[in-house]
């Protein structure tokens, strides 16, 4: 399948536009000569019919949640309700310019305000910002808040370190580094949780904070979470919680009650907004009392029955997004929370944890499960005991019609398969997946080449990534 450029022919067009009153040459006089475009950009010239067929064909080469089971660990690929798409496209939301006056957008501001209030309630924390456009953007905002907090306390010079468990997502160290913090790794113990003795050794007055993922990337809840946050607070540090795994305890426990100072939500994970082939997401943050003065501006506040944009926060870190964050994603998340209610929120975590544990116990006699206790919304298996690569099992799953789990993460498990079924899959789907996984384990012994050569029926087979990286071809060249 080639790109749209391969379908072009000089003179074809997919759309027509109104004419100008004056001749183009005359209008172009408004632009100083040296700044006028000399040569048009090379954009495809295709008919509307060909354009529609091309992108329809491309869509058919993709696998989405609507195509089938997508147990991608750490990504919470749950079903994306269709109501949400219609609501977000409503012209009463989608056609609003962010510079419209407050009086004109009261309904919109109410949506944002209400979502903020609900997220505060879910996290058990008093402050919120909706601006971060993604989880990593939330982390960066969190790091900026921590920096600003210590700057205000006059301790920025000495608070140079951020502690990170060795199972952390890659975005965590990258976010800390963007704000100039030194990243210090904290090893896990044999249970896969933070090693308290190792944490103790690293704690001191030079620590600005810790970034924790709760439950961690092995799907294990930190039993000592209260002790951990207390230890960090005792040396004056702040506790950042990466909320990528909130699906594990939604409606049952609150980060604010665990000692979190900053918590980021991934609306595109926990709150069912679609991933859009990689984005847009939304990564709102909730914060504890001491961090309230530093939140990004503007804040959305309610005064009597009016909603207002509030800028008067002199100690704010400033703006982290051009406007208010990914608003249409927030419309979807609000619709989701309103649909679920308290009861539904609890059912989500129940369903997610039930499905993950069910898969764990049904697969552990075939695949090694290195941390085989009660897991939360996901667990990590390894193919090392079968003598095959995690990648090969993943690719073979595609032949069985499933999207592969996350592979080679977390880094502390060799040949890792990180499996997160979510709450929206039926028992029948889970059973089919178990069956496929067990058959692949058999194939690994009997016909290992079936795995090594998989997938067999996709639009392309395994691609040469070495060639792609050694001789990068990143755009179509003009003929």
């Amino acid at each position: 399948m080639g790109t749209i450029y391969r379908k072009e022919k000089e003179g074809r067009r997919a759309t027509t536009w109104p004419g100008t009153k004056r001749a183009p040459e005359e209008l172009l006089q408004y632009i100083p000569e040296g700044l006028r475009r000399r040569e048009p950009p090379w954009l495809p010239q295709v008919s509307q019919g060909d354009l529609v067929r091309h992108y329809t064909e491309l869509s058919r080469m993709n696998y989405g949640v609507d195509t089938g089971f997508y147990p991608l660990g750490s990504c919470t690929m749950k079903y994306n309700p269709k109501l949400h798409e219609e609501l977000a496209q409503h012209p009463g939301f989608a056609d609003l310019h962010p510079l419209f006056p407050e009086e004109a957008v009261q309904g919109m501001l109410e949506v944002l305000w209400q979502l903020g209030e609900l997220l505060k309630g879910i996290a058990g924390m008093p402050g919120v910002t909706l601006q971060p456009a993604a989880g990593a953007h939330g982390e960066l905002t969190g790091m900026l808040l921590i920096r600003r907090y210590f700057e205000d306390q006059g301790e920025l010079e000495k608070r140079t370190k951020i502690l990170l468990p060795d199972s952390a997502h890659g975005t965590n160290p990258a976010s800390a580094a963007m704000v100039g913090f030194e990243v210090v790794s904290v090893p896990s113990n044999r249970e896969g949780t933070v090693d308290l003795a190792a944490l103790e050794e690293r704690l001191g007055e030079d620590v600005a904070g810790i970034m924790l993922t709760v439950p961690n990337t092995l799907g294990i809840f930190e039993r000592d979470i209260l002790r951990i946050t207390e230890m960090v607070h005792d040396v004056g540090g702040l506790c950042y919680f990466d909320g990528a795994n909130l699906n594990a305890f939604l409606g049952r426990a609150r980060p604010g009650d665990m000692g979190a100072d900053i918590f980021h939500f991934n609306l595109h994970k926990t709150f069912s907004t679609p991933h859009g082939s990689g984005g847009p997401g939304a990564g709102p943050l909730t914060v504890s009392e001491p961090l309230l003065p530093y939140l990004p501006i503007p804040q959305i506040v309610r005064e009597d029955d009016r909603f207002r944009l509030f800028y008067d926060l002199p100690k704010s870190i400033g703006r982290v997004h051009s406007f208010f964050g990914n608003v249409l994603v927030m419309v979807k998340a609000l619709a989701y929370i309103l649909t679920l209610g308290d009861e539904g929120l609890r059912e989500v975590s129940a369903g997610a944890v039930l499905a993950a544990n069910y898969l764990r116990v049904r697969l552990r006699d075939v695949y090694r499960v290195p941390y085989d206790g009660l897991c939360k919304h996901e667990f990590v298996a390894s193919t090392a005991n079968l003598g095959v690569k995690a990648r090969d099992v993943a690719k073979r799953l595609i032949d069985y019609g499933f999207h592969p789990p996350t592979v080679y993460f977390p880094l502390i498990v060799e040949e890792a398969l990180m499996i997160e079924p979510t709450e929206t899959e039926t028992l029948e789907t889970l059973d089919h997946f178990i069956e496929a996984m067990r058959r692949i384990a058999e194939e690994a012994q009997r016909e290992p080449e079936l795995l090594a050569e998989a997938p067999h029926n996709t639009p392309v087979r395994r691609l040469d990534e070495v060639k792609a990286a050694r001789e990068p071809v990143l755009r179509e060249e003009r003929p």
Partner: protein
Amino acid sequence: MEYIPHTRADIERMLRAIGVGDVDDLFSDIPAEIRARYRPLGLSPRSELEVRRELEGRAIKNRRLVPFLGLGLYDHYIPAVVNELSSRSEFYTAYTPYQAEVSQGTLTWMFEYQTMICELTGMEVANASMYDGGTALAEAVLMARRIVGGDKVLVPRSLNPLHRGVVETYCRGAGIEVVDLPFDEAGRLVLEEVPEGVIALIVQQPNGLGIIEDLSGLKERLGDAFLIVSVYPIALGVLEPPGSFGADIVVGEGQPLGNPLSFGGPLLGIFATRRKYLRMMPGRVSGRTVDVEGKEGYVMTLQTREQHIRRERATSNICTNSALCALRATIYLAALGPEGLQQIALLCLERAHELAQEIERIPGFELAFKGPFFNEFAVRCSDPEGVTRDLWEAGFAVVPPVYLERMGVERAFSLALTEKRTEEEIQGVLEVLREHAR
């Protein structure tokens, strides 16, 4: 619950397999005192109909003014094919294309998008998107520092104040000083001398006042320091691309390319640079290669730059981006072709200049700057607040004076026009202004 399929019997079967008595036992590893502190929200579950009514009620409450706006986000017409095709759920319910064999659709359009952005900007490589124009600009400064070194960035007062806000936040966090550059009577930036330790000069094209900047000769004066240009992509239908003027990085707000205004999000951050800086560029890229049978295909490549591999040494922390908005931009540009893009740019030019000329005829109103503009311009008058309010009353939205003040312009508001603005709407605006004639 319509989104959770487990029946009572399913739950029983799963619990038995796991070997626990009931669902609450699955949470016994969360300390009891934490669970005990949980407070519900006080929300009852609702049906689809009820939720639709409630949220559509809020949507209807909003007043859709006619946008003569403004500051990075513009109200361009979106052809029907854009919505239709980008709404296919194989696109919007997929994750990042890490598994290339089942993601060729996404990887192919990413490659197309990269090509189109390079063509628009005159640059050699482009990534597959950032969050928005503001964060793309801030990331450009961070990238420039990794290559050039230094500790200060030159920022014109005429930079879109919303983008400036994001740049200032990121720079403060990264220990970079923001040095202001003034503009002249024409509204164009003035670069007198290039101080020591400069990472980059930021130029917005056209700038926050709508004025077209003269990019020629700037890179030569900067030497090793980077020339970062933030563009309005539609204007590039008629403006020479920054690549021709030696720009090192070109960024921009890509919303005008087939994305709705969305009350400011999601947006699309454009990011393009020189091939020699490819490995320092943030964000994802799709590359062309072959499969084991020699068939052409696409993969995410150069991932060693990214956070999931290089962690604290990554070029950025960005992971989730604005893929779906980039898909819309791709389909939009394919639907336009080179002629369509130029035509839209010409319509913007024509409508804006018509209105500007009419405004200048009204006593008490004048264009704040005499420099050349594309589709956005600032208007000076004695009571810009009053005018803005009256325009709102009449159903028209313009950029209010407070944003102009942030760029150092007093007693002014600004307007932007696209191909969507009708003769009637333009007359409507003029009527309100004439009531304020002196």
